[in-house]
């Protein structure tokens, strides 16, 4: 017997309609209203796994405490998809082109997994194992997403390139910068659209840490990031074009996140 959890269904149902996935049972968790919430607990923003992307997009607490998540949500498909699609469903599905896994990686978020035996918290860096592959065990359900709340001096940005609005990202880059006395104290970049799954761009991060941002430095970081990964070629884009996009998008998100860090959060 094989069973599959049905959350928003915006990725699962297409695979069923195409007969790419066949299950003896679908376990529909849309009735679990207690898994749909957005709340601040101390210094962390807690989001229930069944919170719809449409609710995340419009949530004032998300815009304030996880602005990167709010910004990236606008790039998640189209509004009628976001009406049903959930944050937990997207993260559990772990499509390599999906925005949320990269966002969670850039924000150093954690995933709360529940089984009959209890709960465990898994950092995003240990949750995504590969394309469509996660650390979720067969008897576990993703119940909550935990994101450190944005602090003053932090700046965020997300950009992606897709063939048409709402399509899967050919490449997307998420940035979270922490500024410290005019210098970059901490830089985190995460990438989606690369077939292997979401990845950090650690070489570019190391280059920027401790530095004063300048156009020349950002250019160098972009080139370094593009060289540090091995993207796939497919019918949407070849590897060289993806590398070019990583280069350009990294420079754009770094500059935008730097500008964002100087802004007051309301």
């Amino acid at each position, binding site marked *: 017997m094989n069973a599959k959890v049905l959350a928003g269904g915006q990725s699962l149902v297409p695979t069923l309609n195409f007969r790419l996935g066949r299950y003896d049972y679908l376990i529909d968790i849309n009735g679990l209203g207690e898994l749909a919430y957005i709340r601040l607990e101390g210094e962390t923003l807690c989001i229930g796994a069944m919170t719809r992307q449409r*609710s995340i997009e419009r949530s004032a607490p998300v815009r304030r405490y996880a602005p990167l998540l709010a910004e990236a949500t606008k790039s998640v498909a189209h509004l*009628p998809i976001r*009406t049903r699609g959930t944050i937990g469903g997207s993260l559990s599905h772990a499509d390599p082109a999906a925005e949320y896994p990269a966002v969670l990686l850039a924000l150093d978020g954690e995933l709360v997994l529940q089984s009959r035996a209890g709960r465990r918290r898994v950092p995003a860096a240990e949750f995504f194992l590969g394309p469509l592959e996660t650390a979720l065990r067969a008897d576990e359900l993703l119940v909550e997403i935990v994101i450190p709340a944005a602090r003053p001096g932090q700046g965020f940005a997300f950009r992606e390139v897709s063939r048409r*609005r*709402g399509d899967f990202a050919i490449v997307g880059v998420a940035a979270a910068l922490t500024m410290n006395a005019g210098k970059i104290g901490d830089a985190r970049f995460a990438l989606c659209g690369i077939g292997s799954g979401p990845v950090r761009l650690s070489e570019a991060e190391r280059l920027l840490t401790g530095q004063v941002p300048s156009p020349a430095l950002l250019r160098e970081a972009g080139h370094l990031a593009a060289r540090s990964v091995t993207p796939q070629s497919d019918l949407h884009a070849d590897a060289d074009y993806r590398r070019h996009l990583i280069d350009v998008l990294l420079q754009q998100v770094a500059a935008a996140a730097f500008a964002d860090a100087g802004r007051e959060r309301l």
Partner: protein
Amino acid sequence: MSKQHSITVEINGVSGHYQVEARRLLSDFIRDELGLTGTHVGCEHGICGACTILFNGEAVRSCLMFAVQADGARIHTIEGLTRSGEIGRLQALFAEKHALQCGFCTPAMLIIAYDLLRTHASPSDAEIREGMSAALCRCTGYDGIIKAVTQAAKERAVAPPIDADQPHGRCSGKGRRA
């Protein structure tokens, strides 16, 4: 034939009880059981948007839901919105601005525009373009559609919902809500 499930659904203002198979898509249920063929089926995987309906007041792809999931829900299709007259001005603008040719995407375009105009009191050009990209049109090049929706926004042709900003699926969790 798998097990039948009983569902109660309000469709275009009328509540009814139905027996459905668990595997039945909501789009097929609407077209084949209810005979409401204004809801079109194009790609059956959420890309084309032709099957868009209002589910508890919000636009969704009916090909990506099962009929059994509509138990207890309120559904509006293009037939209901047309009959109520709520989108009358929007429809007139679609005709006036040449926002359709073959008409296959039109029911979905109207519903997407309706949802967009209800949730955005004065949408920007970019928001209208982004919003209307949620369904595929292969005739118009979108130009007429954008013009019609832009004019409808200017005229406030669609009334905002009475219980504004209370989407379904947003439930109160335990503890403090931010």
